[in-house]
């Protein structure tokens, strides 16, 4: 696992082609010389996502969503029922609470979605290690059209760099 905080020096390999970088990623995964390397991509290509699945496994964001949604359901039903219990008021010939449960499904549902969505975002931020102001390598083209592999702790003349060039990196240079 990469920990950019610890190690921000290393080499950067820039790839232009998706097939090359996905091959390289596969190679790196098998090669024990590559540890803590980080792969950057302009978008979520399937090929790289397969790799991500392998490395990061099951995304915990789902748990955040579940917990948020359940909390939303609890709040959605609990709030109106609690307030009915606090001060029961008759409207339209009906007391609140039990008789009005169908109406409270609206709140259960809405707050499930709301809390679930908020929790998902929080989950994504936490699990994606965002915000990540110090860990980023300054390669503006990542967000444009280039794939980048960052290997910490090695130089441009290292074997890793050599391998990366061999796997199709257009360019390999120091990260700073």
């Amino acid at each position, binding site marked *: 696992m990469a920990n950019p905080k610890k190690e921000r020096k290393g080499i950067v390999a820039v790839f232009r082609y998706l*097939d090359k970088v996905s091959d390289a990623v596969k190679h790196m995964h098998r090669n024990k010389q590559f540890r803590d390397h980080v792969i950057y991509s302009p978008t979520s290509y399937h090929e790289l996502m397969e790799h991500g699945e392998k490395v990061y496994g099951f995304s915990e964001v789902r748990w955040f969503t579940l917990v948020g949604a359940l909390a939303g359901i609890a709040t959605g039903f609990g709030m109106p029922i609690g307030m009915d219990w606090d001060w029961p008021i008759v409207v339209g010939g009906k007391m609140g609470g039990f008789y009005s449960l169908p109406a409270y499904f609206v709140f259960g549902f809405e707050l499930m979605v709301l809390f679930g969505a908020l929790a998902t975002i929080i989950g994504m931020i936490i699990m994606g290690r965002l915000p990540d102001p110090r860990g980023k390598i300054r390669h503006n083209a990542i967000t444009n059209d280039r794939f980048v592999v960052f290997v910490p702790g090695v130089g441009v003349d290292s074997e890793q760099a050599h391998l990366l060039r061999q796997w199709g990196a257009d360019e390999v240079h120091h990260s700073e």
Partner: protein
Amino acid sequence: MDRKEEQAPRLVTEGPDGRGESLTTKEMRTVTEKGGKDLMSDEIVWQRSISDVNDSILLGIDKPSKTYYIALAFSVLCMAIGIAAWVYMINVGMGVSGLNSPVYWGVFITNFVFWVGIGHAGTLISAILFLFRAKWRNSINRSAEAMTVFAVMTAGLFPLIHVGRVWLAAYWMLPLPNTNNLWVNFRSPLIWDVFAISTYLTVSLLFWYMGLVPDLASIRDRVKGIRRLIYGMMSFGWTGTVRQWHHYEVGYALLAALATPLVLSVHSIVSWDFAMSAQPGWHSTIFPPYFVAGAILSGCAMVYTLVVPFRKMFQLEQFIRKEHLEALIKLTLLTSTIVSYAYSIEFFIAWYSGNEYEWAIFVKRASGPYAFYFWTMVFCNCVFPLAFWSKRIRNNIAVAFVVTVLINVGMWFERYNIIISSLVEDFVPGSWGHYEPSLVEITITVGSFGWFFTWMLIFARFFPLVSMSELKLIMPKPLSGDKLKSLKEGEAHG
């Protein structure tokens, strides 16, 4: 162009294959098939590669056209007049509207329902079509989502404009602790609305913003100085690691899954505002699906209406392609037929129920003093869209644009028709009345369009109108020459 070159330094100046290389249709199909992806339209011939995406799409951000400023100035003017009218109404009283007894709801609620409905297409396109893997939505989902957010913002204003004492509404309509020990009435459809609309707005906003994060990072990487800092903060320091993408993808899919039922729920709840009161013409179980279908119809039409000029204004023709627009038109046609069915079944239910009050309302809708609105609605929503069965018209952007505008008009009148004609002549003949919107109401309505377009234009000025990271996914993958060759060979052999 020089400036852009400066701002977008390229790490790799040139590669073995020059950029902009295009693939033939056949090649494209092969590529997509091999990649396990599918395109809805097989007609698309991409003239651009992913390397062009950022440059082309962010052109508007770098250098908006003159048309843009004229449009913005006009929108702001409309908005200002609308706000002035609202302030006047708050000061003087609701009497300046045309509302009266028995027509207690009028243009404001019409606008509310209209704008909420507009929002629906955005969520449908971005969430439901995402889950259905309809990849064509990637080119228009950003504008549709932005439309959703701003439409819901606009819609959210109208209940406030509508209430008699807006200065208290915000205070008492929220379930907050207070010295009165009294809460809100959770059994009121209006409180459901408060929850539905605020949830919808929040979730749409989150969904929209989540999609924006990688694109904001793209802009950050193109600009300098304070803008870079701002965009950097707004993008949460997105770097594009596979780890981020991994969780992002899961989160995005979950959000889409959460937003999907909202498409159905929000307008159902809005329809309950009507269906839950015992008013003839309102009190009908068909209302939720009917409203949802209507919302999607108006939303799709509005997306089309918006995307066509924006596409032109920001020169996005290469990315928001005819094929995408045609897909949108097909969706419009589908929902139009659903709406037509709803109209007719509504009449059938009214007749079949044997309820004299209900049936009287429907007869009056079609033949009474408000028949004009009814027939406008029928022609705009049911008859004109029938033209879309013709592929030529579907692909004729000008004609299709006119029809979508008409659908918007028709959908506005649908709500007007539902609200007004049911209220004007309901149960007790002694209480019947009439309604005409006042100048203030019309001004505020115009102002709401100004408000909406102001937001839309401001958004287009600072944010990409097309989801760049998602667009890249549906464009030809950046494959090396070797790979392409092998793919071509593979096809030849296969």
